[in-house]
Structure formats: structure tokens, C-alpha cells
């Protein structure tokens, strides 16, 4: 039985190996026809004319993710502080399942909600056609909230009580102790929560596809539509063939490398936290 258990545990290693191998084996042939530099710095995406430049998608992914973090990170961290240090037990018992529910809502439902409510609202108040960087950022901010809240709350709760008590004993108030002593000590845990949210935002596909407009060009304002790396794959893989198909797999490869970099950053922060 031990061998069977060991084999099951090794399926994880196998899966990661297979994913890496197949992405690389199917994505690399594309670079025989086109250089990597041209691919990631090209501003034009015209598969029919065999022009493959994914700079607009890279920019799109970054802009939407940045917007989501700017909106979601402060709200998430402040909510986590509230839950860990200020709210009554009763309120926490209400908020925990609420946050878990927010995490559980499928991305297609988020996308549908964004499309039906946020897009028309933005169109009527801010102008443009509503399918925009702005709406996608807002929606992604909501989607990464639970990730940031759950990780940050755990980090704040993990700070030794003596830090808080020491601060009180020096004459600081409850509030000052929380903001000056407890939260700064949970800094790296909070940061890792934000990085985890960043990873989720870069990888999100369905919800973004439904609200971002998906134009493959460099955006010039936040009310314009944009296409992300993830959306590029989902949108065109259905009918792509030959070089076009390879270029989409190569897009996935670029995304994979980005996500791996974010994961590495996450474990780097975590390891430093453990060393501390």
C-alpha cells in the first residue's frame, strides 16, 4: 500500500512535468518561424496575414491586473484588519462565510454579473461602450478580494499577542497598537496574499472575456476595450489551425512563464517570512 500512496503523491510531479513538456513541445515550434522578440514586442495581431504580435495582450494583462490590485488590495487588507482586530465575534462569524462565498462564485457568473450590470452602468455614466479596462479591473478586484482577505487575516492573526500587549503597555491606544505594531509585523504575510491575488488576476479568463471588449490593440484609455493573454487563447483556439494554433499555444507558454514567475515571487516572500 505504501507504494500505492507514494505513487498517488507522485501524480502531482507527473502532472506538472507533463504540462511543462506539452506546452513547450507544442509552443516552441512556433519560434522557428518567428523570433521570440518579434512575438512579444509586436504590436499587431493579424492571424489571417500571419502577423503575430502579442504586446497588446501583455499590456492588457498587466493593465487590468494592476487596476484590480489598486482597487482590491487596499479594500481587502483593510477588511482583513477589521476581521482580525476590530470586529466583534458575531460580525466575524457573519463575514467569514460571506468571504468564502465570494471566493466560491464561479467566474462565469461574475462575468455575467459584470456584463449585465457593470457594463451598462459604465456606458451610461462614464461613456464609451462599457466593455472596458475599467469594468474588467473592477470585476477582477472583486474576484481577488477573498484571496487577499483570507491570506491577510490569517497573517494578522498569526502575529504574537505580545506585540499588541507590549504596545498597549507603552501607552498606545488599541487603534495605534493595531496599525503601528500588529499590522506592520504581518507585512510579509499580507504581501504574499496580494501576490496570490495577482496570480489569480493574471490567470482569470472567462470573466475578463465577457467584459473587457477583447480588441487586440494597444489601449489608450481605461474606457477602451483590451484583450488579455488568457482571453486570446480562449477566444481563438476554437477555430485556429497550423501556425495560428501554434501561436496561441506560444501565448499560453508566455502566460505560463508569467504565472510561474508570480508563484516564485510568492514562495520567495513566504520563505523569507518563515526565516524571520
Amino acid at each position: 500500500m505504501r507504494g500505492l500512496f507514494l505513487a498517488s503523491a507522485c501524480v502531482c510531479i507527473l502532472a506538472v512535468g507533463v504540462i511543462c513538456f506539452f506546452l513547450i513541445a507544442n509552443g516552441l515550434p512556433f519560434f522557428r518561424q518567428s523570433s521570440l522578440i518579434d512575438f512579444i514586442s509586436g504590436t499587431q495581431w493579424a492571424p489571417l496575414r500571419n502577423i503575430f504580435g502579442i504586446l497588446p495582450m501583455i499590456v492588457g494583462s498587466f493593465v487590468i491586473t494592476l487596476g484590480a490590485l489598486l482597487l482590491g488590495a487596499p479594500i481587502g487588507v483593510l477588511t482583513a484588519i477589521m476581521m482580525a482586530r476590530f470586529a466583534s465575534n458575531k460580525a466575524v462569524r457573519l463575514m467569514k462565510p460571506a468571504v468564502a462565498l465570494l471566493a466560491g462564485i464561479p467566474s462565469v457568473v461574475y462575468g455575467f454579473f459584470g456584463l449585465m450590470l457593470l457594463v451598462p452602468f459604465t456606458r451610461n455614466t462614464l461613456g464609451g461602450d462599457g466593455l472596458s479596462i475599467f469594468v474588467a479591473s473592477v470585476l477582477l478586484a472583486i474576484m481577488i478580494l477573498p484571496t487577499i482577505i483570507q491570506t491577510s487575516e490569517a497573517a494578522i492573526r498569526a502575529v504574537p499577542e505580545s506585540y499588541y500587549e507590549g504596545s498597549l503597555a507603552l501607552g498606545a491606544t488599541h487603534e495605534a497598537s493595531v496599525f503601528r505594531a500588529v499590522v506592520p509585523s504581518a507585512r510579509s504575510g499580507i504581501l504574499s496574499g496580494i501576490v496570490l491575488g495577482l496570480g489569480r488576476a493574471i490567470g482569470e479568463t472567462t470573466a475578463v472575456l465577457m467584459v473587457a471588449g477583447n480588441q487586440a490593440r494597444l489601449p489608450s484609455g481605461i474606457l477602451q476595450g483590451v484583450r488579455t493573454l488568457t482571453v486570446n487563447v480562449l477566444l481563438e483556439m476554437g477555430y485556429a489551425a497550423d501556425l495560428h494554433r501554434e501561436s496561441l499555444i506560444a501565448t499560453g507558454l508566455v502566460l505560463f512563464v508569467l504565472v510561474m514567475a508570480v508563484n516564485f515571487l510568492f514562495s520567495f516572500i513566504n520563505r523569507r517570512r518563515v526565516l524571520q
Partner: protein
Amino acid sequence: MSVNMKAGQTGAPDISVPARSRPRWGARALKWLCAFSSALTLGILLLIVLYICLNGIPEFFYRDEAGVFRFKSELFALRYNSRNLSMLPALINTLSMTGLALLFSVPIGVGGGIYLAEYAKPSSKLVKLIRVTAETLAGIPSIIYALFGMLVFVVTLKIGISMLAGALTLGTMTLPLILRQTEESLMGVPMSYREGSYGLGAGKLRTTLRIVLPVAMPGILAAVLLSIGRISGETAALVFTSGTGTRIAGLSDSGRTLAVHLFKLQEEGRAVGASFAVAVVLLIVVVLMNALSVYLAKKLTTKG
């Protein structure tokens, strides 16, 4: 609060709390911001749930000639067509997809968790590698799983676009969740249980399967329920693996789950009403799975 003592005034010396201990303006503002953010988080959740439900629930009913509300049974017709927009095939596909995917991820995940918690030496290189890869799997976005499933199961293994290919893909996706939760739940079982079992003469395997595993069960079930939520809500990873077939699908047929159904209805620009109805059902599934897993997790903590 310090009181100004005027010259000539008599009385006890001022021993009230010095002004510094009152929250400063900045700290108080920050505290209010915290409260505001929490309210915003709850408000957003409420907005989403209410918006979907208020628009979606009426879609299940219609008013007949006499003005009586009746249930729209065509939404649950056995076959989908562009007129009735039935969600029943998608609902059944969701159930079978969930069952199939769990058939892969639960035995492997639980087995792997048992190895990590009960058998492995925590410091060995292999265990470290397993941990790192499980973490990597958990962080890979669903669109990469879509490419993986398409390239490996659909094309290379020649399974074709089918429920089986989709289930294998989602099984891989939910594997790390179950593996890690199993490991954690097993770690939470007190050593004394194992020692008691060994003391009575049971072997390692019997101790693990008969004593430790049942105690850790609520935690493992909670992970399974979360996986069910993830599987039934997944879209991107399924579009190119199990496809968008509209019928009740067998193992080797293409079939859409509810989430994919909602996605396709939107893409085709079809009936908003039917989409809202699907969204309500999806929301109910997720709420149910979440509530159950919270309940089970609580049961685990009160027991432990």
C-alpha cells in the same frame, strides 16, 4: 482627558488618562476605513447575489392566460433546442462531470495525502518536490489547464473532445486541493490515537485506514465539497476538452456543463432570461457546497 488646572483652584491632582491615549485622528480614520471596506465587501456580495436572484428567480415562472403563475417546465425539457433553451442536459452533465472528475482526484489526492502525512519523512527531497509541484498545480490558471487537457487528453491520447477528457482535466485541477487538505486533516489527528492503535497491536496500514482516516474525514469531505464547487463553476478548462455539446452526454460524447452553458448562451447572444435562470442554479450549487463545507469544517474543529 487632561483638565486645565487654573491657578488657585483646589481639588485632587489631575490623574485622568493623558490625551495621547485617545485615538489620534489618523488612527481613527483608518479604523473607519476598515469598517467601510468590510461593509463594501459585504455589500458587493449582497449586490451580486440579490441581482442574480431577483432577475433570475422570476425566469422560472410565467403567467398563463388566467393570470396564474406557473412553473416554466420547458426550462427543464429533456432535450435542448434554441426555442426552449432547456438547462436540464447541462445540469445532468454537470453532475456526471463532477462525479467523473472526483473519481480521479479523490483516490489519488487522498492517497497522496496519506503518504505525505503518515509515511513520508518530512525532510526528504521527494516530499519537498511533491509539495512544490502541488503548489504549482494549485497556482496554474484554468486556461493553461485547457491547453493541457486539449494537447494531452484530446489530441495525444486520442480521447477526443469528450466528458472523459474534461473530467481528466478537472481531476488534475482539483488534485492539489484534495491532496493538501487531506494531509492537513491527517496531521491534525492527535498522535495518541495512533499510539493507542499500535498499542492494541494494529499495523501501520490498519491504523491509518481504520483509526486516523475516519477522524480526518470531515476535513477531507470539506475539500471534496470545495472541489465540487470548483468543477461545477469551471468554464475555460472545459470549452476545448469536454466541448459544448447540448445533449445529455455519455463518457465519450461532448457535453456542456451548466457553467459552459451560461457562457455559450452569452456568446451566442441568446435569451438573457434563460441565462439569469442558469446563473441562479449555479449560485445555489455554490452556496450549498460552501455551506456544507463550512459545517463540516466546524464539526472537525469541535471534535479535534
